[in-house]
């Protein structure tokens, strides 16, 4: 019975020979990279490459495709451009009013809905989440009609004698902004609420029990327990909402078209108009687009600092 003895060590010796550690690692690395290659390449082509192009274009000017370098001219123009400054102001107004209001509303809703003894919980949750199924364009058109001078909203307000004449929801510079804010809040509150609801389910109920024994009121519990416990998720939702609001386009385009005057126009819409509505000035449009990028970075940093998270 020598044969198996001979084969045995031979096999054993052969096994590790063709798979030395280094080549195996190299092969594994190659396989790993090939898994992520397509996605990384596409993001490079469709995100980072255009951003570099936009940076180059922001130093150019001209109509359509005939661009020539003008140095910092576009950036100087930016700070003297009343329309640009108006759009920044509008966008920031939407942001600082709408995001906190919506987040607070969503938090309140989630706390009320999280009550174990509440009836029809599923109904309320679904109803409040429902606006999320609409497309931004579709709900904007619906809101435009609801808030028309002779629309349902004015009709109702006059019927219950809250106002004596129709509110100019779409044509008054102040009320038009309010309409946009109401619309966005309608569309996104339920979305944020779902995040808080799921986070609340992980909060230990005994903390609330202890607080109750100590005599904390519902309001105190909300501000002293719920908000601190949900801090990471509030930070997450406020950053996503901020980025979303800074890019606001569909709603404004379809509810007020930026009017009256430019009083509801957002930065995104201004970029669109500069490139495709007015005489196209791609160079200056690219400069304006860097303004949004910078705003997003600034606001995200502020929120991270305010949120006190290190992540």
């Amino acid at each position, binding site marked *: 019975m020598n044969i198996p003895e001979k084969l045995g060590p031979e096999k054993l010796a052969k096994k590790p020979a063709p798979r030395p550690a280094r080549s195996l690692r190299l092969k594994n690395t190659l396989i790993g990279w090939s898994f992520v290659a397509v*996605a990384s390449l596409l993001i490079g082509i469709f995100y980072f490459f255009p951003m570099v192009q936009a940076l180059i274009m922001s130093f150019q000017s001209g109509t359509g495709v005939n661009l020539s370098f003008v140095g910092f001219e576009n950036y100087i123009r930016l700070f003297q451009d009343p329309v640009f400054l108006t759009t920044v102001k509008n966008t920031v107004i939407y942001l600082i009013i709408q995001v906190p209001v919506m987040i607070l509303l969503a938090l309140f809703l989630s706390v009320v809905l999280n009550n174990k003894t509440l009836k029809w919980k599923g109904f309320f949750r679904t109803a409040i989440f429902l606006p999320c199924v609409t*497309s931004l364009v579709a709900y904007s*058109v*619906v809101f435009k009609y609801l808030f028309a001078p002779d629309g349902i909203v004015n009709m109702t307000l006059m019927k219950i004698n809250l106002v004596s004449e129709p509110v100019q929801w779409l044509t008054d510079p102040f009320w038009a902004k309010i309409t946009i804010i109401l619309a966005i809040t309608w569309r996104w509150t339920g979305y944020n609420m*779902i995040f808080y609801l799921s986070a609340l389910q992980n909060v230990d109920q005994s903390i609330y029990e202890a607080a109750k024994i100590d005599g904390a009121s519902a309001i105190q519990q909300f501000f002293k327990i719920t908000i601190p416990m949900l801090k990471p998720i509030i930070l997450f939702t406020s950053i996503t909402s901020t980025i979303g609001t800074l890019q606001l386009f569909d709603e404004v385009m379809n509810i007020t078209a930026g009017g009256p005057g430019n009083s509801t126009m957002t930065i995104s819409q201004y970029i669109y108009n500069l490139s495709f509505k007015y005489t196209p000035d791609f160079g200056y449009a690219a400069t304006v687009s860097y303004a949004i990028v910078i705003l997003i970075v600034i606001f995200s940093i502020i929120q991270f600092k305010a949120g006190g998270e290190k992540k």
Partner: protein
Amino acid sequence: MKSSNKVIGYLFLSICAIISIFPFYWMVVSMTNTSSDVTRGKLLPGGHFIENLKNLLQTVDLVPALTNSAIIAVSTTVLSLLIASLAGYGFEIYRSKAKDIVFNILLLSMMIPFAALMVPLFRMFGSFTPILPFIGIDTLSAVVLPTITTAFLIFFFRQSTKMFPKEILEAGRIDGLKELGIFFRIYVPTMKTTYAAAAIITFMASWNNYLWPLVVLQSPENQTIPLLISNLGSSYSPDYGMIMMAIVIATLPTAIIFFFMQKHFVAGMMGSVK
């Protein structure tokens, strides 16, 4: 909870629920009414459903727009899921320092607003037109291409892969499966719910996308549903009944997905946070 608190709670929820539902109710009721009924503030269903539908089909190219939107949304969803899940799996399973750096760079793209990309992308696709006309300006492929890879979806798949039992992969290797085989035969089938959630997010985003199609599509026969609705909405003498019909039809696919796949729908949103 004290009973007064409870009453306030129910009142608050009821008001919010009514405000949330009312525009839907109004949309559905108005699509059965004439335009003048809608302006008069009629809130009960009427008998003009068929008439509004007929008007809509005669006034606009609804079916081509639905077809375009469906082609774009389905191809975007299929390609996105494939590309993002391969990448999310790759970043997690073959984890290395270099890959983590690449991953973090990819995440930065989430901060880039689309408005900043639209002009350079428009020029990029403009330059494709003479050499590769099938992906140039005013083609459906031009709508799909820049939207098939999002860092968010890669992140989403990577997060889900963290929970994936890695021992199964070893078992697959011992059974002699190639790495790609392991991905398609073991990973994909076990991650069905992740794929369902990702598909819902992607399909909805694509079906509702407005800005990029508005920029890149020009001819009426390439119009998508959001473009069609937007055009209808900006008409000077709107036929409200007909427009509400169009809006309900446009909302139907996402509403159906929501009601039949609510669990995946919510899971999709939540998965992004964990």
